[in-house]
């Protein structure tokens, strides 16, 4: 019922907001989108989906009024109320509560004279008090928002003034669409604007988006094409173009539009050109942009939908309980009414005590009974369960300090979780990518030393990231390349709290001071030493030593000369170093990115100049229209020209770098950096891995100082790995990438194009011109499954080469499978050589795709497909995604607590399964079922066979197995000792989620302890959660860290965000934010348990006292002719709930702690299942409450001589208290009332103690006794399990148990053997076939394909 109300309310609000949109101060939200679309469609030239931005300057005044006048300005308002509408609106919101409405009805009823039980005004009091308190709370919250808004609105920025013809200071709120804004370094962007100028010679601007998504790495933004070439700053007066772009939307990763010059020439705009509100300008001296979206239409604001309101299960149940109470009340009142009618009919004549109506006649008993009914309702209202609801609101759980609690009202749900859905990467694992192994040209390099290094880190890192300095002492053989400002500062969970304060203040509820905090800016992402230090593999280094510049001397003549493997290795590492979007920066200065060495003062200056000039003309990174004219030279003339470049690159070597070294050494950090470098060198020398030649490499000394900032951690890991092999990424500009290659010296690659990574293609590519071969080379890096499909299959020339490739491919595939089994993330590296004509052809098509506004995505995808094919496999990498600390323990504990854990991951099956084993989600002796089918029917079949087998095992009675019953009460497999795990792949999941198979799927999963869904898309993740939540009606919890988990987090009853490295989206969407998965166990087991017992006990407390009170009123009716008299003064009635009995339940709800935290942690079983503990606060509050009653009664009784008819309390209490019988009765009634329950609890406690009770005993033992007792407890538990398992197995004719195996492979095999022995040969083979089908398929397919080709 209430949900429907909320829905209605939401839509009503939308309407209201839409209507008041024109009002400047009116609230503005999503609905504005619609409204805006409507508005702009009134102007004839525009379709509703586009907006036109005209510069806000003199020549365009009329046009500006026409188009941009309607757009909102940059003022933001996130408050809900204004001064004027606060009272009506707040009341409106509050009366959405069923209970409040009900009580309002009662108040109104009391105004009917016939049934008036008390003075009219008095009845209103409780309601007024509650409404006022809540209103004050809402008001304060809103005021805080208002203050933050104001602060943000009044920030200063430089805006071009058309009057003064220069940039002047103006408040953010005065910025309008079409304004030119000039920002300096480290300034925050006030509105979404298109970048028109950057002081950067390449037309690049770096922005930090941590304010928006929490990612601390820098992002590049590009000046609009055509403006980058201008040397001088763009002059707003001369700006005559107009911008047409999409209507405001909340898609951060998309911006489409074009810029139309006065001569009708159009230039495409993409998100690369858009500076987003809330981001910070970095590394760029100054930028100028034109505002396209302002205020609430900015993407940042549109992404701020505000925290979602989740209602806790208990609260919902309390609501239904309120309804029950009303029912009970109605029954009571009916009894009263009927009783009154009967009582009245006993008397035929009027009598003294039956007061007739004012007009003299006596109402009939029936009517009187009816009136009485309503009177009773009013009467009992005062003793009603009035404050439960409001107290649930006021109830403010003190959460654990390590946890960021973003949704106070669902804290107690933490104690009821039955299903847990977890993301893998970043949640279970650290998302700290560590380069582990690689395979190049079919040879596996297992990097044993590196593995050893990682192990030594295992303990060190788990301590604390920040204390690495002390740890490094023990790792003396390691270089310590972390420069001071390079270190990663891992924010605590709270560290990112204010991250969005500029984007909008809806989230800053918990941090009033948030707006004043400055986001951390000096951190490089993904650069903890564990990731940056890679110890090279000896074998691979040996092979590196074969690389000499001589290899490439005869490069032009023949390609066959150098051994193929060496070429592979070179290409492989070059790909690692350049096939990414890593930003290189030096740590000592504020993110001053390293430019390619300045070219001035070199002997070959002129040539270089020509070269760079040529580069600019022929191959701009982004294919510009001017390329059409430059196409010809790129295919012809420069070929000959550039072919000489290799020579240059070898000739020019030291000077530029040396120059830079000297520059660096002038800086204060010189000493430290050089010290650091010598250490590195020493290490290299000690290791004896490098000969003198390597050491003398000119670029070397600086390498250790470079910081890489990557968009994803694996990218950085690969770059660091490449660096370990002296293939150092030195600098990156939009036009070129410079790499220091071990023996070859610095190589400068012209960067022709980058096809960024996206989740559809699952790969990224760079197109470069190779400086040595001068060919256009495409380096592609991506998921193995994708890359393998794109490899060239048919090649006309040389069979030997072809064969070699085939072998490489097979071997690599084998290595890949191997890596996956170890739980490594695998990536394939491939390359392709293109002819210039091919490239030009592709470029032309690509340009077309790039400039189209509509369905650009598809066109770009097609274009990418055209480029990324016929690849040559170079090798593969294995990156370890390290398990987070404490994950296995946490999962074990949660399992024991009876929580079912599902792992939903986008990773491949092998990786997922291995992580599942590693984190003890699956036990080695678990029975594993794998669902991996290609069709729906097969999926259904397989599920039913598995089900049948499971049922046979557990010997469930046939009637219990029926689907419907099963869904309601899933069987509990742990009782039967059978543990099962289910693996399901994304594709099969799609089938399973379909309507017809849902039930079967759920039934199957209910048998399984753990479910692993691999290759699942974000949408599937949320669908799975939704399915489980709605069909099984259980409490679900979803935990994840990345943007791909957001939907899942929002769907689940409780969403937990892990504030990790993947940004803040998950945290923003979550109800609770933790920093590590292991905190989840404390959150659930301790705080969840406490919250739940507290709140449920508190609600019971409320019901108890109210039921006691209402019953007192009710029973009194039997003694007063059911006339609706209350037995005491109504002020006492009112204050009973308001004053005398309000504090104890609340204190109880906040402080109750039935079992200590340690015991709860040690005995997760307790989660499945309360008692009292009393601190002095409890005692104080209870005594205070009692005293408050007496004080009130005495003072009231003394002061009030004639007031308060009919039950004038004058001196009554005093008379009472003079009478000893009063005290005797008090003592007696209390004893009688409590004795039965007390006895019951005592008997229960001594005869059938609950686990909670037994756990309490532990709390009072000495530590030694405790550990002993705990051991005993656990031992007994295990014994129980084992015996039950044993009993069940013998019953189920399962001959013997599979031996628990240490590794995953063994476990799977044991699952087979187990199944075979149990006679279900066919089924288990199917399941296993599915599991191994992939590998087998590859093994089989590989050679056969080779034959075909």
């Amino acid at each position: 019922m209430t949900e429907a109300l909320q829905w209605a309310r939401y839509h009503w609000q939308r309407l209201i907001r839409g209507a008041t949109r024109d009002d400047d101060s009116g609230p503005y939200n999503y609905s504005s989108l619609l409204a805006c679309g409507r508005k702009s469609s009134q102007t004839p030239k525009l379709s509703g989906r586009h907006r036109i931005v005209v510069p806000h300057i003199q020549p365009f005044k009329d046009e500006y009024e026409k188009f941009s006048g309607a757009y909102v300005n940059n003022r933001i308002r996130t408050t809900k109320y204004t001064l004027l509408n606060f009272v009506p609106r707040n009341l409106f919101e509050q009366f959405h509560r069923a209970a409040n409405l009900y009580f309002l009805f009662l108040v109104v009823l009391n105004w009917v004279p016939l049934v008036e039980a008390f003075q009219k005004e008095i009845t209103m009091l409780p309601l007024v008090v509650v409404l006022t308190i809540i209103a004050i709370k809402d008001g304060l919250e809103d005021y805080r928002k208002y203050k933050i808004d104001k602060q943000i609105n009044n920030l200063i920025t430089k805006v071009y003034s058309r009057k003064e013809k220069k940039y002047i200071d103006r408040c953010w709120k005065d910025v309008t669409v079409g304004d030119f804004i000039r920002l300096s370094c480290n300034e925050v962007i006030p509105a979404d604007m298109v970048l028109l100028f950057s002081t950067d010679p390449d037309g690049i601007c770096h922005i930090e988006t941590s304010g928006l998504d929490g990612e601390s790495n820098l992002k590049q933004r590009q000046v609009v094409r055509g403006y980058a070439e201008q040397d001088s700053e763009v002059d707003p007066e001369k700006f005559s173009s107009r911008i047409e772009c999409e209507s405001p939307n909340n898609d951060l990763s998309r911006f489409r539009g074009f810029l139309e010059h006065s001569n009708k020439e159009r230039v495409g705009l993409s998100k690369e050109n858009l500076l987003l509100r809330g981001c910070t300008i970095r590394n760029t001296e100054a930028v100028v942009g034109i505002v396209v979206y302002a205020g609430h239409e900015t993407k940042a604001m549109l992404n701020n939908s505000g925290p979602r309101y989740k209602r806790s299960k208990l609260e919902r149940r309390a609501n239904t309980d309120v309804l029950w109470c009303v029912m009970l009340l109605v029954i009571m009142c009916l009894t009263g009414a009927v009783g009154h009618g009967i009582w009245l009919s006993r008397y035929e004549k009027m009598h003294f005590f039956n007061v007739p109506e004012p007009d003299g006649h006596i109402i009939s008993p029936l009517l009187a009974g009816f009136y009485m009914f309503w009177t009773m309702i009013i009467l009992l209202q005062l003793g009603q369960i009035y404050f439960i609801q409001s107290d649930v609101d006021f109830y403010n759980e003190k959460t654990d300090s390590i946890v960021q609690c973003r949704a106070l009202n669902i804290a107690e749900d933490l104690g009821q979780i039955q299903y847990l859905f977890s993301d893998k990467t970043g949640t279970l694992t650290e998302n700290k990518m560590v380069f582990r192994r690689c395979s190049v040209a079919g040879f596996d390099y297992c990097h044993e030393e590196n593995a050893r290094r990682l192990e030594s880190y295992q303990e060190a890192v788990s301590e604390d990231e920040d204390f690495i300095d002390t740890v490094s002492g023990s790792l003396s053989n390691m270089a310590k390349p972390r420069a001071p400002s390079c270190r990663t500062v891992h924010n605590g969970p709270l560290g990112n709290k204010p991250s969005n304060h500029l984007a909008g203040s809806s989230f800053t509820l918990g941090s009033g001071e948030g707006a004043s905090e400055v986001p951390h800016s000096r951190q490089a992402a993904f650069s903890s030493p564990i990731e940056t230090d890679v110890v090279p593999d000896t074998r691979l280094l040996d092979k590196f030593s074969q690389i000499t510049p001589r290899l490439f001397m005869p490069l032009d003549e023949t390609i066959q000369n150098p051994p193929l493997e060496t070429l592979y290795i070179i290409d492989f590492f070059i790909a690692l170093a350049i096939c990414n979007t890593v930003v290189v920066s030096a740590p000592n200065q504020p993110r001053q990115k390293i430019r390619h060495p300045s070219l001035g003062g070199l002997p070959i200056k002129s040539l270089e100049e020509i070269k760079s000039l040529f580069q600019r003309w022929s191959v701009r990174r982004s294919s510009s229209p001017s390329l059409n004219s430059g196409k010809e030279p790129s295919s012809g003339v420069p070929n000959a020209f550039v072919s000489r470049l290799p020579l240059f690159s070898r000739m020019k070597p030291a000077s530029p770098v040396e120059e830079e070294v000297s520059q660096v050494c002038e800086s204060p950090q010189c000493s430290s950096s050089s010290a650091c470098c010598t250490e590195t060198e020493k290490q290299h020398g000690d290791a004896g891995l490098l000969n003198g030649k390597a050491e003398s490499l000119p670029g070397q000394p600086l390498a250790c100082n470079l910081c890489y900032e990557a968009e994803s951690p694996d990218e950085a890991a690969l770059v660091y790995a490449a660096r370990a092999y002296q293939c150092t990424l030195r600098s990156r500009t939009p036009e070129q990438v410079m790499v220091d290659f071990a023996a070859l010296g610095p190589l400068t690659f012209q960067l022709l194009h980058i096809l960024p990574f996206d989740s559809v293609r699952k790969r990224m590519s760079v197109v470069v011109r190779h400086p040595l071969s001068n060919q256009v080379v495409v380096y592609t890096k991506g998921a193995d499954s994708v890359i393998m499909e794109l490899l060239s299959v048919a090649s006309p020339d040389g069979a030997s080469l072809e064969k070699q490739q085939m072998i490489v491919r097979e071997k690599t595939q084998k290595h890949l499978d191997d890596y996956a089994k170890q739980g490594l993330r695998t990536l394939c590296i491939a390359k392709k050589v293109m002819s210039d004509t091919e490239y030009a052809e592709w470029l032309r098509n690509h340009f077309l795709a790039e400039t189209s506004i509509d369905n650009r995505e598809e066109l770009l995808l097609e274009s990418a497909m055209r480029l990324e094919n016929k690849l040559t496999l170079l090798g593969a990498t294995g990156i370890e995604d390290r398990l987070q600390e404490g994950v296995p323990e946490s999962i074990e504990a949660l399992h024991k607590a009876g929580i079912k854990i599902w792992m939903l991951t986008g990773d491949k099956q092998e990786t997922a399964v291995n992580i599942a084993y590693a984190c003890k989600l699956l036990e080695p002796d678990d029975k594993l079922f794998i669902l991996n089918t290609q069709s729906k029917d097969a999926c259904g079949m397989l599920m039913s066979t598995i089900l049948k087998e499971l049922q046979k095992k557990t010997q469930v009675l046939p009637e219990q197995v029926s689907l419907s019953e099963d869904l309601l009460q899933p069987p509990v497999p742990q009782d039967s000792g059978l543990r099962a795990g289910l693996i399901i792949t994304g594709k099969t999941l799609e089938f399973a989620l379909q309507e017809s198979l849902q039930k079967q799927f759920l039934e199957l999963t209910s048998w399984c302890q753990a479910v692993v869904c691999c290759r699942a898309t974000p949408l599937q993740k949320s669908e799975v959660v939704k399915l489980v939540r709605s069909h099984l009606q259980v409490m679900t919890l979803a935990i994840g860290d990345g943007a791909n988990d957001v939907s899942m987090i929002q769907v689940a009853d409780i969403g937990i965000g892990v504030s990790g490295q993947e940004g803040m989206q998950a945290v923003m969407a979550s109800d609770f934010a933790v920093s590590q998965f292991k905190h989840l166990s404390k959150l659930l087991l301790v705080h969840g348990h406490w919250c739940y017992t507290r709140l449920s006990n508190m609600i019971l407390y409320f019901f108890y006292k109210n039921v006691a009170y209402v019953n007192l009123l009710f029973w009194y009716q039997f003694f007063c002719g059911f006339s609706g008299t209350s037995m005491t003064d109504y002020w006492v009635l009112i204050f009973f709930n308001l004053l005398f009995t309000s504090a104890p339940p609340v204190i109880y709800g906040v402080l109750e702690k039935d079992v200590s935290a340690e015991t709860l942690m040690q005995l997760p079983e307790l989660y499945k299942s309360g008692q009292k503990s009393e601190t002095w606060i409890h005692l104080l509050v209870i005594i205070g409450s009692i005293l408050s009653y007496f004080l009130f009664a005495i003072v009231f009784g003394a002061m009030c001589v004639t007031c308060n008819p009919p039950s004038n309390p004058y001196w009554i209490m005093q008379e009472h208290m003079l009478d000893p019988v009063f005290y005797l009765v008090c003592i007696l009634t209390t004893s009688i009332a409590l004795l039965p329950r007390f006895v019951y609890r005592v008997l229960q406690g001594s005869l059938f103690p609950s686990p909670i009770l037994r756990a309490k005993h532990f709390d009072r033992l000495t530590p030694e006794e405790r550990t002993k007792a705990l051991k005993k407890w656990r031992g007994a538990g295990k014994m129980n399990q084992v015996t039950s398992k044993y009993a069940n197995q013998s019953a189920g004719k399962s001959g013997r148990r599979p031996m628990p195996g240490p590794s995953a492979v063994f476990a799977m095999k044991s699952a087979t053997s187990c199944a075979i022995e149990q006679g279900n040969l066919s089924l288990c083979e199917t399941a296993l076939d599915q599991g191994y089908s992939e590998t087998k398929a590859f093994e089989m397919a590989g050679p056969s394909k080779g034959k075909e080709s």
Partner: protein
Amino acid sequence: MAMNYNAKDEVDGGPPCAPGGTAKTRRPDNTAFKQQRLPAWQPILTAGTVLPIFFIIGLIFIPIGIGIFVTSNNIREIEGNVFMYYGLSNFYQNHRRYVKSRDDSQLNGDSSALLNPSKECEPYRRNEDKPIAPCGAIANSMFNDTLELFLIGNDSYPIPIALKKKGIAWWTDKNVKFRNPPGGDNLEERFKGTTKPVNWLKPVYMLDSDPDNNGFINEDFIVWMRTAALPTFRKLYRLIERKSDLHPTLPAGRYSLNVTYNYPVHYFDGRKRMILSTISWMGGKNPFLGIAYIAVGSISFLLGVVLLVINHKYRNSSNTADITI
């Protein structure tokens, strides 16, 4: 009952410090309150721990009960001041509309309320266009029988017992809450412009001849106006003071009660009673409280014994049960 103060030591205390420079400010105070480590009293209710409670309750309650019972029974001998009550049954003086039907301001001597009584008094607010004083149903239904007590001596000549009218109402009621309207000496003049309640025989200023006990401060009236909580009630009517220590207040003998019948109760199935009682420190005769105390004490004692048996029987198993299974 077992109790312990399990203040937790610091070891289990705070959560791991959030790394980074911001840790100092964000780390919550490691106070017992914030970290939820307040010393707490956690009762564990098992037979062994609560046994003493039951015995203590039993041992305290039974003597109290006996004491009360004995006291209550001792009241039988009418020796001290004797209280004379009238009792009514099935009279719902607690009916909601009846209870409301009065005007305390009028009774407090407010002259404006005297002439313009509260609406709550309806329909006993005005009679023949004159305000009723005292208004309302309660006053209207005032008990107006007269009870007289006579001792019939051997010579069968009835000796009237002196019944004291004053001192039966609460002091605060008589002196603070109820007041006659202001004005001259003549009470009748003060009540000028009002009329008597419809059921009354005489107006309020003629309730008694004693000016200290007339009008609104008539104690019979005050006692009646303090409405009873239950339909069967008794109200103090008169006091019989003890004349000397030598003679009992009401010596043994035959007594006769003379009732001037004004107050009809039959038509609502009512009953009238007259009760004579002395009072002790705990009021009038009331055996119930004593019996209740004795009963509760006995039950508690009995339960204690039962628990003792249980504890003894389950001691071995419960000790181990507490720890293992």
